[in-house]
């Protein structure tokens, strides 16, 4: 009944405009209780609206003029306002690149709007197919859960910093605004509206990274701003090129008209890929994402792992049908695979937990780019699966690290050694998150398996993916083991955390697990309809086994066996809890206190161990220059090859 009551216009309006209104309310009303209620209600409504959108997809609509002013004019005006704000920040922080890029974009936008574009027929401004729907669901559900967790997190954060005046109104204003921008971006069909929301997410990212106001935060925020503006500049150039070649700015029309093949057109597509790479922090643009880790953890979870960085991969996945069998597509695959390998290698050498997560994000995004670049039905399915699962699980991991960081006041993995003794449930959820990142039958491994099978004929790509995959296992397994490195686990007593924290973490963890088991359902309901008409569904799903002529992944049977195995193993733990506890082997010199042994002159010595970070091979300083060089070469190849 409710389904019939709400139309697509109303739902789209709710998804895009409601968070904006909530943002304004959060900014104006500075009472924390009211703000929490507003956030909770907004989140709930967003989740409901996104779910209600499921049976209504696909659809396209053109919003009616708003008080007589067409949507295009409103967006145009807001776009200029936005670019002027960015220019203002460029002046405020005296950063020449930002000023130059903002001016560049303003000039090109003016040229575009007033000289190039002729009439605008009544076109479909918003379009929602299943890929968009998947993104809307991610933004609404995962985004709302992160905002829920941000409520107790920011309260704690500000107590920690001993702020006299709370700045949470600014924080939640930008967070809600960001949710609105993301929904608008994925729903938009008109490239200019897409561009507006693209730049809006850049601004939100800048504001949120700079939130704490420290020198380091501002420096990193400025770096994020100029790198993302670089992407924006490339984007507007690409739009000019595409309009000149195809005469339309509608994404669906562009996709349906296929590859025109002219140099300018391919160059514009290459520039769009370039913009996607800057947004998704691929090499050599990764430093902004690493610097963005100084922001409060909900920001890292929302923007820099689940949603904003997904904009780049979303764009390339959308455009992949147009790029079929071009050199551009192959070079995107190479760059993606190279990033996957390089970021995994750099993560091995990191001991800062958030940086490991950042590199892992860059790595997985590289893998999705590689899938999009390979441009076969299997690889596109793989890319979408990775998109979904990575968003959920990375958000979970970031929120866990946020909770851990607030408890132990450190982000270093070495300080999380034996965390199980202190925070058992959080440690377990982090370990669950790590397991879901690297192991079958969970979603990410399913996507990786599909990607490998799809990449098998592409020699360079498969070698890089194989190497990157093994490096991935190394840094995750190391972290999981370090968390559990407690001499004896006694009775399980969960630590106290705010209800919203447990709610968010628990939902994300359970959601990822259930969705992994339901992967065949996800495939049929969401991914197959999202494949463009050019592709046939590559897999059959009989008995819950995803199968094609040359490979099979038994999702349901393996999930069943995994659950069984888990139950058996937990029973074994219960039995082991009654066993006799002995100290770890320290050559017989151990004393009653755990981890201490009798040393020379009968002095007590604490036995210490540290993880291998292999910084002589995988050190950040050592590798980054070379990797950036390599990435620069590949990028030049991509853009140049388009000509």
């Amino acid at each position: 009944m409710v389904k019939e009551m709400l139309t697509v216009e109303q739902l789209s309006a709710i998804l895009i405009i409601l968070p904006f209104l909530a943002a304004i309310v959060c900014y104006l009303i500075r009472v924390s209780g009211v703000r929490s209620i507003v956030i909770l209600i907004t989140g709930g409504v967003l989740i409901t609206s996104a779910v209600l959108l499921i049976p209504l997809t696909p659809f396209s609509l053109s919003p009616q003029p708003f008080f007589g002013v067409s949507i295009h004019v409103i967006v145009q005006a807001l776009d200029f306002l936005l670019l002027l704000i960015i220019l203002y920040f460029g002046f405020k922080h005296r950063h020449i690149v930002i000023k130059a890029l903002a001016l560049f974009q303003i000039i090109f936008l003016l040229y575009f709007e007033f000289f190039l574009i002729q009439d605008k027929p009544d076109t479909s401004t918003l379009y929602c197919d299943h890929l968009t729907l998947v993104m809307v669901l991610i933004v609404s559900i995962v985004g709302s859960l992160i905002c829920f967790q941000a409520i107790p997190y920011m309260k704690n954060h500000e107590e920690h910093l001993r702020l006299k005046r709370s700045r949470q109104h600014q924080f939640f204003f930008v967070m809600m605004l960001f949710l609105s921008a993301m929904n608008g971006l994925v729903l938009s069909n008109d490239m200019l509206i897409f561009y507006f929301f693209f730049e809006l997410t850049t601004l939100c990212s800048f504001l949120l990274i700079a939130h704490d106001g420290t020198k380091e935060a501002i420096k990193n925020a400025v770096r994020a701003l100029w790198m993302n503006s670089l992407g924006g500049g490339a984007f507007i150039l690409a739009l000019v090129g595409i309009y000149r070649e195809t005469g339309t700015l509608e994404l669906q029309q562009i996709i349906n008209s296929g590859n025109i093949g002219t140099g300018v057109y391919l160059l514009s597509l290459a520039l769009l890929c370039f913009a996607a790479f800057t947004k998704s922090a691929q090499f050599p643009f990764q430093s902004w994402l690493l610097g963005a880790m100084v922001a409060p953890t909900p920001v890292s979870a929302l923007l820099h792992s689940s949603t904003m960085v997904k904009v780049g991969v979303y764009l390339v996945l959308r455009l992949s049908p147009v790029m079929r069998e071009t050199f551009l597509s192959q070079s995107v695959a190479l760059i993606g695979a190279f990033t996957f390998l390089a970021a995994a290698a750099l993560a091995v050498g990191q001991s800062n937990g958030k940086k490991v997560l950042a590199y892992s994000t860059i790595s997985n995004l590289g893998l999705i780019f590689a899938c999009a670049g390979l441009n076969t039905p299997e690889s596109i399915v793989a890319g979408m699966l990775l998109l979904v699962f990575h968003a959920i699980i990375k958000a979970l991991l970031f929120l866990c690290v946020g909770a851990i960081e607030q408890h132990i006041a450190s982000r270093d993995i070495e300080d999380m050694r034996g965390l199980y003794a202190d925070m058992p449930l959080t440690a377990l959820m982090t370990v669950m998150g790590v397991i879901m990142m690297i192991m079958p039958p969970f979603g990410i491994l399913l996507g990786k398996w599909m990607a490998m099978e799809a990449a098998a004929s592409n020699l360079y790509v498969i070698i890089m993916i194989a190497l990157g995959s093994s490096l991935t296992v190394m840094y995750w397994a190391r972290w999981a083991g370090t968390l559990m490195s407690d001499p004896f686990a006694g009775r399980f007593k969960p630590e106290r955390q705010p209800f919203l924290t447990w709610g968010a973490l628990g939902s994300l963890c359970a959601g990822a697990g259930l969705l992994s088991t339901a992967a065949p359902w996800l495939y049929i309901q969401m991914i197959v309809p999202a494949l463009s008409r050019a592709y046939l569904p590559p897999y059959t799903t009989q008995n819950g086994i995803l199968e094609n002529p040359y490979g099979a992944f038994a999702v349901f049977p393996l999930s069943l066996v995994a659950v069984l195995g888990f139950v058996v193993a937990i029973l074994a733990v219960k039995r082991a809890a009654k066993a006799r506890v002995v100290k770890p082997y320290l050559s017989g010199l151990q004393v009653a206190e755990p981890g201490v042994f009798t040393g020379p002159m009968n002095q007590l010595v604490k036995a210490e161990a540290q993880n291998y970070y292999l910084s002589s091979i995988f050190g950040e300083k050592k590798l980054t220059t070379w990797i950036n060089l390599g990435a620069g070469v590949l990028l030049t190849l991509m853009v140049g090859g388009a000509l």
Partner: protein
Amino acid sequence: MIDTAIFIGIGLVVGPLLGGLVSGLDRILTARLQSRIGPPLWQPFYDVIKLWNKEKTVVNVWQAFCAYCYVAAASIALVLFFLRSDLLLILFIQAVGAVFLVVGALSSTSPFSQVGAHRELLQILSYEPLLILVTIGVFLETGSFKIERIYSWNEPLLMKLPFLFVVLGYALIIKLRKSPFDLSTSHHAHQELVKGLLTDYSGPILALTEIGHWYEVVLFLGFCSLFWATNWIGMIAIVVITYFLEVLIDNVSARLNWRWMLGYAWTMGLTLSMVNLVWLYAS
């Protein structure tokens, strides 16, 4: 349905029995190469039964969890192999077990376990890309990842994939814990970090890790048998000869360090793989 169940049963039961026999043969062969007589053939079974009936002592209860997960993963991988499923999937499932073994070892704070666990991680890092590339090579030649198809290929794979077989041999040395790459833990005569990864396991839990290792041995020997799947004699010959070579290499070499292992596996392994893959790709 019925034959699926039969295959699962066979895989679960025959796997460790075969693995134990192979381990026993391994020890006898090693002893004979060293001018000794060596233990009886059933020795590994005596070891496991004895361990199973020891008192259960733990350093950390999660060791029990990890040991069970290791056995589960290894046995599921072997069962899937018997069911002739997807080779890449089998590799990934086997990797689950290896990771759990590492996490279980890291859960003890003794430096022996910790260093052993990190060495095991480096071992995984060394052999996993090689195994993936071998699987890709098999795919490029036979056009399928499914073992059913690979077994029914009408030409012995060794003909077209000789270098990849050598690469598989490298991965096997590391996986079967043979010198020169037995850094993290090895059979008892070659101890370095006491027992490395398995130092703080004892009693029934140690028995589980041993059984898990048997499953893995059978799985990897099965992997070898794919390379001459056209007739039974060839299959048995290739498995026997490969295993004999592994034991021989174990007895004539000393242990190397992780830099050597990683460097050797990645440079030699990748070069040989690339040569073979390019050859396959071009033809």
